[in-house]
């Protein structure tokens, strides 16, 4: 019996009135885990019951502990009729199963009902006693940590990054079972919630098992998704990156350094020149090859089967039969072989991470993506009968235990796509894919599966297979005896785990850290796509492309000029309504055009902003009944290593027409003005290259490379600089019809954010480094009707474009009080719930920053400080004076500015303190101490039950909850502890001290009184607020004070206004953490700003 789960029900508050006669409620609680149920006594006639139950104990095996949620149901006792359910709380006890995470779950949870929403709160305490289980054949994977964060979590160090793990489980969707016709919506929703909770538990356990087999101890970048396939079922799938993590407090043990890295280097020769590859070119862009395979057998990927570059990723143990043989075989065999063997899993050298320890990422090739259109077939699931007879009503059907070929189909689909991605990466001379993600879009029976990532060459050192001990030894032997790179001083505090690796990089590669990743990994003579190569503007040794698209975050060490900005490409394509195969075929046919157009838009918009690289690129193609929508978001930046982008030139087709030409030139002027304006806005002032370095322009780089074919080996001589491209206007837009004209117009309609705002969809905004701690995470959802009688692609495009722009505008307006601030991790999700309806959901976080004050290195070092430091070094060396024309415009790279900052360092510190205390002091003048007192008082009051004014609360669970959170530095005496939420992996100005476990929640809300609840907006507004509240409550109960890497993965909204009904499903996830403000770490806690009168403080017993 490997585990004992203990649950105590303490109290409830603010329960709804269930008995109209007495205006009270006779509440009791059912606690259910697995098949065991306990009940509390009925607490009669109270809306604030105090059950104070005994400890309910469940003795269960750990497999069950991982799969099952704890289910708490609050009911109203009724003597004469059936008891009415008030609501439920599902508690995922997974965080209690790791040794380092939470030890107890205790706190107030909102009682949730799928029809009525939150109805009061319940105080629960949950504990788990785990017994050690040494069974090798166990099915559980307790102890494997899961992180949604797509970087190495802040208080850990990656010892080994093992690689890709994936799993999926499939089941019938309870909503589509026959029984759903006779049961209530509530029962149906609850069945669904419970099933998904079970499925995620199981999925997580299985992934955990894979990780253990790979000898890892954690999954980072864990992304779990649901595919609601309607009648064909429910798919829960997850991907992640298996790692061996080490808690950072141990680092000192590794510091004694020895040397000799040479041995490892020999063992894994790092190949700068990837093998020649006869890959036919795809679309003429760095956005690499999309293939559209409606029929799965298209063997596009076989060409690139060479596995030489795979060396470091294919395990060298006996199983390493090489992927070539397998790829040659038919897909079926390939997929059959794809068992759970951990080694086989590494067949996909994918990483869901987007940020890496410095030195991990050597080169980036470009974005690789693959899509495939599938038909969801109605399956006759033979297990269906079995399910109904089972006591555990929704037994999971995963493909191991069950022979339905259905899950295998899904697995095969994904395997096929991953294979494609892999081959694309190879074509780019890369052996790995980073920033990898998968998604689906389903409409009726058609499903588009998409996968994308960034082809990259990685430093093999982190990927060593082998035992933990072996790795530790390696690490020790890799410790260099010196830290040579001065510019990384700032980084040492923040990324202690990377000290060795970054200096390692210095040894291993001669190229400076700021540009290495831009250097092309592929052979310039056999480029996979036509691109203009130049010598790196930073080191001048290696070739770089003219633009770089990636799905990852900007590497910490990258040298950036100016600030970044959010760039979106938006596109609609009409499609005929069709059935089944015809529909799928027409979608497949449309996809390449959409991808091409999205890409063109991105390219144009990038150039329009005078930038040359995209990070965090995410292209979403959504399928609807009669149209397809494409939305690509990315963060544009100017990488110092890449050439200056050329402008955009417009060429008309009918040069004779005078007015037309005038119009063209007018447009051209407008475009040029926009580019100039943008350059100013984003502070893009790349250093002008002195003439002698540039040399004479060489006419056609591609021709030249052909000429130089024979001497490519010597091409890295500095004398042969080819910088011609920087001077060249590369881009010509031809306006040959009205469509093209529209396109140009739409280019110019993108309004830059109002002053004081920046936005990006990556974790951090390039070019801003002085964040202040105020953050505001939000979700905005809009559904719009595209009410055109005869919609055309153009009008639809315009509508869609307006919709997105207006949404952004409205966000800027909402958050205007936070200026200056930056919207980070702006994540758009598009859905087409019905004909003509477009739903856009945005989740992002607004972070304030200090415009005038640069942070002192010791005050709050951020990742960016290192970047800035190195940039400054760089520029001070080469371009000492030219940039400082306007030091006040917060030009972060300007040496003059740097001097200014240094001079003002003394005044800067008090300013920082003032900034952090602003939250509490601003209003303090007006409502002095009484607020504080009210807050204290309020704890002693029970609603409506004051008979005497003295406090009855000595035994109150509130006190316990409050004490539990006492350690949480909130700065206030509020009864509800503040929980911050952010889609980022960090909190500005704060240090994450502990990860408490993954939060993965799924909620359904339904209403049959839509109008009464304020229409669709009122309904969804309340629901999203409720979801936030439940996430916060769970985090607080774990003892945490923030959720990082928060993501709303799904928001499915359906309405039927005629029936006054609506339903919504929301799936969110994130990592619960404890953070401590850096200011509190340094100084002793400052006493609360408002003094409390002694007399009243004595009253407060809590």
């Amino acid at each position, binding site marked *: 019996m490997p585990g004992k789960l203990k649950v105590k029900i303490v109290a409830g*508050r*603010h329960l709804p009135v269930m008995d109209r006669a007495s205006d009270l409620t006779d509440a009791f609680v059912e606690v259910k885990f697995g098949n065991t149920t306990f009940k509390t006594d009925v607490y009669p006639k109270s809306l604030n019951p105090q059950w104070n139950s005994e400890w309910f104990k469940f003795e269960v095996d750990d497999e069950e502990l991982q799969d099952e949620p704890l289910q708490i149901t609050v009911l109203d006792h009724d003597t004469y009729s059936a008891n009415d359910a008030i609501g439920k709380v599902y508690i995922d006890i997974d965080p209690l199963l790791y040794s380092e995470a939470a030890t107890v779950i205790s706190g107030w949870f*909102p009682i949730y009902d799928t029809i009525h929403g*939150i109805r009061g*709160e319940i105080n629960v305490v949950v504990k788990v006693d785990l017994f050690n289980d040494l069974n090798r054949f166990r099915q559980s994977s307790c102890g494997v940590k899961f992180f949604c964060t797509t970087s190495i979590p802040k208080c850990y160090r990656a010892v080994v990054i093992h690689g890709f793990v994936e799993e999926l489980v499939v089941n019938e969707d309870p909503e589509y079972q026959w029984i759903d016709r006779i049961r209530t919506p509530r029962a149906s929703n609850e069945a669904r919630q419970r099933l998904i909770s079970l499925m995620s538990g199981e999925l997580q356990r299985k992934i955990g098992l894979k990780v253990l087999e790979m000898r890892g101890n954690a999954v980072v970048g864990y992304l779990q998704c649901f595919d609601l396939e309607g009648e064909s079922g429910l798919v829960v799938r997850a991907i992640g990156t298996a790692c061996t993590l080490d808690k950072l407090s141990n680092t000192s043990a590794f510091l004694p350094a020895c040397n000799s890295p040479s041995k490892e280097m020999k063992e894994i020769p790092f190949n700068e020149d990837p093998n020649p590859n006869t890959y036919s070119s795809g679309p003429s862009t760095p956005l690499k090859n999309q293939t559209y395979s409606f029929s799965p057998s298209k063997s596009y990927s076989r060409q690139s089967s060479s596995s030489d570059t795979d060396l470091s990723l294919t395990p060298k143990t006996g199983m390493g039969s090489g992927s070539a043989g397998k790829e040659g075989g038919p897909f079926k065999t390939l997929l059959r072989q794809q068992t759970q063997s951990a080694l086989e899993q590494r067949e996909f050298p994918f990483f869901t991470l987007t940020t890496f320890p410095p030195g991990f990422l050597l080169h980036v090739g470009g974005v690789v993506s693959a899509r495939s259109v599938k038909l969801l077939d109605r399956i006759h699931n033979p297990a269906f009968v079995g399910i109904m007879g089972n006591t555990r009503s929704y037994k999971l059907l995963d493909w191991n235990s069950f022979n339905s070929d259905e899950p295998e189909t899904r697995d095969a689909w994904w395997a096929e796509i991953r294979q494609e991605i892999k081959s694309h990466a190879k074509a780019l001379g890369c052996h790995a894919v980073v920033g990898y993600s998968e998604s689906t879009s389903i409409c009726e029976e058609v499903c588009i599966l998409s996968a994308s990532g960034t082809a990259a060459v990685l430093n093999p050192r982190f990927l060593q297979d082998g035992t933990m001990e072996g790795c530790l030894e390696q690490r020790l032997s890799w410790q260099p005896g010196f830290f040579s790179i001065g510019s990384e001083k700032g980084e040492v505090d923040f990324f202690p785990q990377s000290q060795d690796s970054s200096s390692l990089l210095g040894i291993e590669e001669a190229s400076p850290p700021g540009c290495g990743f831009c250097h092309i990994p592929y052979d310039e003579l056999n480029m996979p796509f036509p691109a203009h190569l130049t010598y790196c503007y930073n080191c001048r040794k290696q070739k770089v492309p003219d633009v770089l698209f990636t799905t990852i975050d900007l590497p910490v060490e990258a040298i950036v000029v100016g600030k970044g900005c959010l760039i979106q490409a938006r596109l609609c394509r009409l499609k005929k309504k069709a059935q089944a195969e015809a529909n799928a075929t027409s979608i497949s046919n449309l996809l390449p055009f959409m991808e091409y157009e999205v890409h063109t838009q991105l390219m144009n918009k990038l150039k329009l902003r005078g930038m040359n690289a995209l990070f965090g690129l995410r292209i979403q193609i959504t399928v609807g009944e009669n149209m397809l929508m494409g939305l690509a978001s990315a963060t544009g930046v100017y990488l110092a290593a890449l050439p200056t982008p050329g402008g955009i030139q417009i060429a008309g087709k009918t040069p004779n027409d005078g007015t037309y030409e005038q119009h063209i030139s007018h447009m051209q002027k407008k475009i040029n003005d926009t580019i100039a304006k943008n350059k100013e806005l984003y502070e893009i002032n790349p250093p002008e290259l002195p003439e002698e370095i540039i040399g004479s322009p060489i006419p056609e780089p591609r021709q030249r490379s052909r000429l130089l074919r024979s001497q490519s080996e010597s091409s890295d001589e500095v004398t042969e600089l080819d910088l011609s491209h920087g001077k060249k206007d590369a881009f010509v837009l031809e306006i040959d019809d009205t469509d093209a004209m529209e396109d140009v117009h739409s280019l110019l309609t993108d309004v830059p954010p*109002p002053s004081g705002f920046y936005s990006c969809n990556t974790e951090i905004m390039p070019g801003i480094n002085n964040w202040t701690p105020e953050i*505001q*995470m*939000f*979700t905005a*959802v*809009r*559904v*719009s*009707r595209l*009410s055109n009688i005869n919609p055309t692609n153009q009008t639809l495009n315009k509508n869609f474009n307006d919709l997105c722009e*207006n949404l952004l*505008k*409205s966000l800027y*307006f*909402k958050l*205007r009080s936070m200026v200056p601030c930056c919207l980070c991790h702006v994540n758009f999700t598009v859905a087409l719930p019905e004909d003509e*309806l477009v739903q856009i959901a945005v989740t992002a976080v607004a972070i304030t920053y200090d415009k005038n004050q640069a942070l002192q290195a010791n005050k709050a070092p951020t990742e960016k400080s290192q970047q800035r430091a190195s940039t400054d070094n760089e520029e001070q060396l080469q371009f000492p004076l030219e940039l400082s024309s306007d030091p006040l415009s917060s030009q972060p790279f300007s040496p003059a500015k740097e001097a200014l900052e240094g001079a003002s360092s003394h005044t800067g510190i008090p300013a920082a303190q003032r900034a952090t205390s602003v939250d509490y002091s601003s209003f303090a003048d007006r*409502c002095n101490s*009484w*607020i504080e007192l*009210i807050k204290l*008082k*309020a704890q*002693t*009051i029970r*609603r*409506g039950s*004051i*008979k*005497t*004014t003295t406090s009855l609360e000595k035994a109150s669970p509130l006190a316990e909850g409050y004490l539990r959170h006492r350690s949480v530095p909130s700065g*206030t*005496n*509020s009864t*509800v502890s*503040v*929980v911050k*939420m952010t889609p980022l992996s960090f909190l500005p100005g704060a240090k994450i001290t502990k990860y408490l476990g993954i939060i993965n929640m799924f909620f359904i809300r339904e209403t049959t009184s839509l109008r009464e609840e*304020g229409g*669709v*907006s*009122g309904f*969804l*507004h*309340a629901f999203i*607020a*409720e979801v*936030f*509240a439940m996430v*916060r*409550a769970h985090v607080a109960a774990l003892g945490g004070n923030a959720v990082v890497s928060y993501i709303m993965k799904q928001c499915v*909204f359906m309405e039927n206004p005629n029936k006054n009904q609506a339903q919504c499903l929301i799936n969110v996830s994130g990592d619960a953490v404890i953070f401590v403000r850096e200011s509190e770490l340094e100084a002793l806690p400052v006493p609360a700003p408002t003094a409390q009168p002694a*007399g*009243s403080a004595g009253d407060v017993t809590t």
Partner: protein
Amino acid sequence: MSSDLDVFVGNTTLIDEEVYRLWLDGHSVAEAVARRLRGGVLEREGTSVAVLQSDTRDHYRTFQMLERLLHAPPRLLQQLLFQIPPERQALLVQRYYAFDEALARELLGKKLSKGTKKELDEVSARTGVGIRSCRRQFDNFKRVFKAVEELRGPLAENIQQLFLLPPALARDYAAIVFSGIWGLWERFWGFLGCPDPPFSSRDYAAIVFFANSRFETGKRRLQFLSFGDFAACAQSMMAHWSQGALAPEAADPDGDLPKSFLQDLKELKVLVSDKDLLDQHKSLVCSALRGKISVYNELEANFKALSRALVNVGGKLTHARDVRDFFVDLVEKVIEPCRSDKWSPGDLRLFLTHYTAAPRNLPGFRHQALWERYMAAISACLLRMYHD
């Protein structure tokens, strides 16, 4: 292209003070948008009307959801649905319970009943306060009154705890609520157990005071008095007459002590019924004031009438019917005569000081403490009410 659904939800609930004010004033979304437009927000932020509409709707939805919680402010602090910083919560409550003085003056002394609520249309027209706002404020008064009417213990603290109101606002509330129902007159003394509670809800208590005692405040004679005047009077009465004013420790929630205080006030009648005492009192006051007061002759002529009025007001306080006339009596019998004789406020102050102090030297007068306690409140009331 129209937006059917448009929501914005922040982890920290955004509260726009301007929109909150518009919502509290009872404006519809369209009106609020129009007003915001006039406020020039468009020019400042460079945004569009559509954005403003969407923003306003969002805020209105939030406020509607919050309203349920604002009805019981302590719940606002405990609830988990909206994460609102404490200072913002305080702002929400304070603004929600803030009221228009003009409206409060209208409601003083009226029953907080359905009938009164129906008359709010007229009140709204008279005061210029929007009808929706009137209803909300009326409901606030009623809610506060209902919540505290059954409670024992110091009124001020009860109000404070139940509604988390700042002192000034709470004081005003008390004045209104107390003007409503005579039945609670005696309990009122119990509420005042603590003369100056830590979060003195004095304003609030004053309102409750009036609601309870149903002082006549609506007569034409009293029209010149503002809400603030009544609130101040109620406060000084509470401050001086409650049992806590004498012995805070001996606070007796059942109100025995104040009852005896009211009974004892009858003893003061001796000052006017006993001819000797009255004469001696007059001569003491007159000799003290001779030459110091401009209306000496009028004082000498009217002393007996004034004294009788001042003492009798107190004697009548034990009877509910007479209490109604408290303010009317003071105005009719003290303020109006003085005004017609052109007393200056300074004269009145000087007179009241000496009038209160003189009995100390009266042989055979044994109720000195009682007298001064009684007169302290009466003097304060008169001085406050003595204006045009």
